[in-house]
């Protein structure tokens, strides 16, 4: 099988250009969707009959929580591609994912904690989802710490790729185990995340927000990827052409 197309696709100058062209195509819809969803969520949606206005933090909280997990998947897949096919661009993608993923995780944690104070009277409970999210955050930190700890770029790429892959094997196991841990301990489960039905005027903005966040992630990933490629290839001759 002829793989040249694959490698041409993965060549840094090529990706750099494609990423530049694609960014606005993600950024604009993301912006529009987020604004619309904010309007829908903060203005149009009725206050929750139990939680009052406080529930509106959900529109930031839930999408960032979902994205945090999704981005880890993207990161690990990119790392695996980089490790197996020795594609430098894939490593650059993984490296660009980590910061964004950690950031979304942090946002979901902080918004959750801020919400928790009025809802449960405390910033933190050891609920399985919360715990799993916290562990995810630590995994991100570990990944970034490992990357920062190794000077040589190629070595950092490959070592962190191994870690990302090990982590992705573990995440479902960790989720399952904390789920199991708490269900046995029968903690006072205050957090009711899987409510059976949500009125459409509440749900629609949430889904829009999710889509908007995803597109926003794609856009920011492309931007960071370009920066990462520039950093990595700063001595290559094509850079001079691009920057001219």
């Amino acid at each position: 099988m002829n793989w040249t197309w694959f490698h041409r696709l993965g060549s840094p100058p090529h990706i750099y250009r494609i990423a530049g062209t694609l960014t606005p195509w993600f950024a604009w819809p993301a912006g529009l969707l987020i604004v619309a969803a904010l309007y829908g969520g903060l203005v149009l949606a009725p206050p929750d009959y139990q939680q009052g206005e406080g529930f509106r933090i959900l529109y930031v909280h839930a999408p960032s929580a979902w994205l945090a997990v999704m981005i880890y998947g993207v990161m690990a897949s990119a790392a695996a591609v980089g490790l197996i096919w020795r594609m430098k661009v894939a490593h650059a993608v993984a490296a660009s994912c980590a910061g964004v993923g950690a950031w979304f995780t942090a946002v979901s944690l902080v918004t959750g904690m801020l919400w928790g104070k009025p809802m449960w009277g405390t910033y933190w409970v050891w609920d399985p989802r919360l715990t799993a999210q916290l562990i995810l955050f630590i995994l991100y930190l570990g990944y970034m710490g490992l990357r920062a700890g190794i000077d040589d770029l190629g070595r950092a790429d490959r070592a962190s790729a191994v870690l990302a892959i090990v982590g992705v094997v573990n995440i479902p196991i960790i989720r399952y185990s904390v789920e199991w841990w708490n269900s046995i301990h029968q903690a006072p489960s205050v957090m009711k995340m899987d409510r059976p039905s949500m009125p459409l005027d509440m749900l629609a903005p949430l889904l829009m927000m999710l889509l908007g966040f995803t597109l926003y992630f794609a856009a920011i990933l492309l931007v960071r990827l370009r920066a990462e490629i520039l950093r990595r290839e700063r001595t290559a001759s094509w850079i001079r052409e691009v920057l001219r």
Partner: protein
Amino acid sequence: MTVRRTTAFSAAGLVLTRDLRLAVRRPSQLIQPLAFFAVVALLFPLGYTPELGKLRAIAPGVLWVGALLASMLALESLFREDASDGTLEQFVVCGQPLVALMAAKTLAHWLLTGLPLTLMAPVLGIALGVPVEAMPGILFSLLLGTVTLSLIGAVGAGLTLGVRRGGVLLSLLTLPLAVPVLVFGARATELAISGESLMGPLYLLGALAVLGITLAPLAAAAAVRIGLE
């Protein structure tokens, strides 16, 4: 001189016996993780309460967290010396499958820390008010759990090879991965203490160990190769 090549199997055996002999040369090494375990487990009640009844409730957590931390601390030295004196380089160029050598090193680590920790646990358990009937269950669950901990740790130690002052980073990488072991292990211990059947968590611990045995040496070998560059 007729030159007969060493098989992968006996090369791994050589690595294992070497690590064990090195440890025997310095017996203090054998005692260290144990003493550490003891100190943590005993320090803990010091800051909490001397009542055995209350202590029994926290015993599973203390035993498992103690074993986890002791085994993790000993991990740091798993590859450090081999890396700095050039042994790992020789492992890579000696023509033997690195996976086998890594598996041997992990086994040695378990025999030198995980196993003694397990055998030590009943003593500490008694100090924490755990009834004697619970001991077989605790022993067995620790036996399974420490194997997995050593395996996870080997991957982490391989990954942090090239990292200066990697000690803290190593724990940061491995501890989250060890969460399932801790959860199932502590649960098994709890069931053992309350006299119920602990087969459920034991099966899960066994499954984790099997998964670790199949995957971890591969990942550790890859990590070591990368770390040496």
